């Protein structure tokens, strides 16, 4: 099992009566790409600030390889940090920016020079060493910020929504670059974002936060497939939420009913004790067919064409409108508003959610 580099125990941060962080405990493993994901106000940035040392915790502690660093100032923590607004030093050249952490560490000039060149190479910005930050584009500035944060070989690299100021295309390119940089260097990355695509595409592990608490954590695939709460299911990708009345159960196998139709649902280890299952159903797990072909019948209300797939909103008398995502290249039917269709899903498609979780 890999070593833990950071251990966060019961981290609580209060601003007056507001809990920005509420008893958050989290282990960060050596070399992993960990993403803190959440909407604004979820506490993800506060948690990162606490790790960086800018926001002292009200309660709880943070350990770096077994050493309590809760009360250490940011400059003693040896964490590189990349900010949303790049935060390059505007009065220094690119070279001086990257050399800054080495100079404050009093490294010899020859070593500084060599290391700066290495770091410029790392982010493919060799030709820009003598420019001023204001002369660079957003994407270039962020590369320099990255090189600067990595130049002193930090124990952990903290990234606070580093891509959110960039346009969509550039963001996608930099995601690949960040990921490959992480894989090459083996440095531990802690990445904060509100963008679920970024979280899913880069991370080894994602921690979803809401209202200062951890909602769920896991590898992206597992989180996407098995959200535990409605919040997670809704925040990561799209979901349909259904309340299914249970008519019969036998271990993990249940029978549910919609209208007059009974169908089986597999719910491994389902805790649902009542007569109703709260389930999330991913739009891409619902099949669309000609009337009568699938489990339930409905009428197409609206279609949204997105290129590689299309989103179809289907009305059903009992369950209301359902969002269905269909690959355009293997469509069984060409959906049009007003068209009668049928739809259905595999036994394991509905994911049972915990009760009461909003």
């Amino acid at each position: 099992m890999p070593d833990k580099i950071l251990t966060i125990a019961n981290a609580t941060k209060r601003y007056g009566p507001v809990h920005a962080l509420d008893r958050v405990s989290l282990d960060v493993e050596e070399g992993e790409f960990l993403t803190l994901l959440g909407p604004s106000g979820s506490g993800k940035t506060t948690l990162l600030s606490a790790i960086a040392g800018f926001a002292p915790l009200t309660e709880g502690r943070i350990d770096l390889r077994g050493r309590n660093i809760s009360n250490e100032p940011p400059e003693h923590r040896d964490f590189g940090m990349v900010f949303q607004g790049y935060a390059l030093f505007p009065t220094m050249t690119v070279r001086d920016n990257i050399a800054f952490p080495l100079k404050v560490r009093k490294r010899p000039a020859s070593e500084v020079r060599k290391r700066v060149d290495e770091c410029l190479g790392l982010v493919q910005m060799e030709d820009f060493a003598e420019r001023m930050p204001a002369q660079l584009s957003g994407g270039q500035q962020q590369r320099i910020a990255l090189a600067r944060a990595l130049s002193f070989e930090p124990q952990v690299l903290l990234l606070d929504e580093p891509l959110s100021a960039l346009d969509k295309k550039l963001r996608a390119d930099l995601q690949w670059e960040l990921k490959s940089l992480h894989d090459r260097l083996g440095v531990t990355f802690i990445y904060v974002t509100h963008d679920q695509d970024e979280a899913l595409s880069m991370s080894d592990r994602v921690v979803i936060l809401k209202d200062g608490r951890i909602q769920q954590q896991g590898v992206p695939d597992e989180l996407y497939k098995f959200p535990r709460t409605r919040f997670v299911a809704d925040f990561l990708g799209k979901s349909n939420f259904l309340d299914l009345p249970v008519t019969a159960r036998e271990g993990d196998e249940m029978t549910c009913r919609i209208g007059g139709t009974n169908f089986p649902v597999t719910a491994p280890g389902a805790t649902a004790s009542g007569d109703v299952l709260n389930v999330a159903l991913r739009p891409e797990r619902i099949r669309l067919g000609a009337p009568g072909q699938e489990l339930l019948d409905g009428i197409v209300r609206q279609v949204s064409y997105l290129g590689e797939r299309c989103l179809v909103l289907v009305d059903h008398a009992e369950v209301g409108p359902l969002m269905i995502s269909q690959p355009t290249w293997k469509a069984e039917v060409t959906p049009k508003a007003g068209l009668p269709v049928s739809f259905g899903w595999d036994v394991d498609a509905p994911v049972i959610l915990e009760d009461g979780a909003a």
Partner: protein
Amino acid sequence: MMQQTSGFRIFFMTGAWMVLAFLLLPILVVIPVSLTDTSYIGLPKEELSLQHYVAYFQDDRWLSATWTSIWVGLVVAVCATVLGTTFAIGCWFLSNRASTIARWILITPILVPPVVQSLGFYRFWVTLGLIDTHGGVILAHTLLALPYVSISVFAALANLDPRIPQAARSLGASVWQTVRAVVLPAAKPGMLTGGIFAFIVSFDEIVGVLFITVRNVSTLPKKIWEGIQESIDPTIASVATMLVMLTIVVTIITIWRRRDGDLT
């Protein structure tokens, strides 16, 4: 574009020029007066003469008062810039309610009438034994100049992204290294403006000086004031003319440099 010359426009243009003339003429009238050939304040009678300029440069009292104003002004500029910048940077780092209140308190010298302020100086300086000393004048002027420095440094720091000092800290710089490396460079334009303001405040100040000095300390404004009280010496006009010229030169240089700055 066609110039529109409606009656309305002519009315307002005339009004504007008259206000401008009203503002400028009393200042400009010192120029002919300074060139008078008479020995009292008045317009030249027979010919233009530079005798009152010569008198200024030959009179030790005028020269020493000028020199006092200059060096006191420079010391005040340095003190006020150091203190005001420190204050502004401290408040910027805190940026909480206490620091906002502190900022308000610091600018009260601008709000309090100079006579009231000077009376306060007088009472205090008697207790402190600072009456009629250069130190007393420097201290009083520094207090009067502080708000100007801190306001201009605050304005300069408003452009500094708070994440930049955070970045410096996270990269391993101590608070002091951070201030030196990234905060001071950002504050520099404000410090420069503030320093110039502080010098002008001190150079120009008279009410306080009249209250807290007797014979030992004489600044240029005080000497001009006394010159009018004692005699009607046209030297005053020549001093005034030189100050006006100096102001015009400095203003032109400033405008010219700023335009240059915009081009780069």
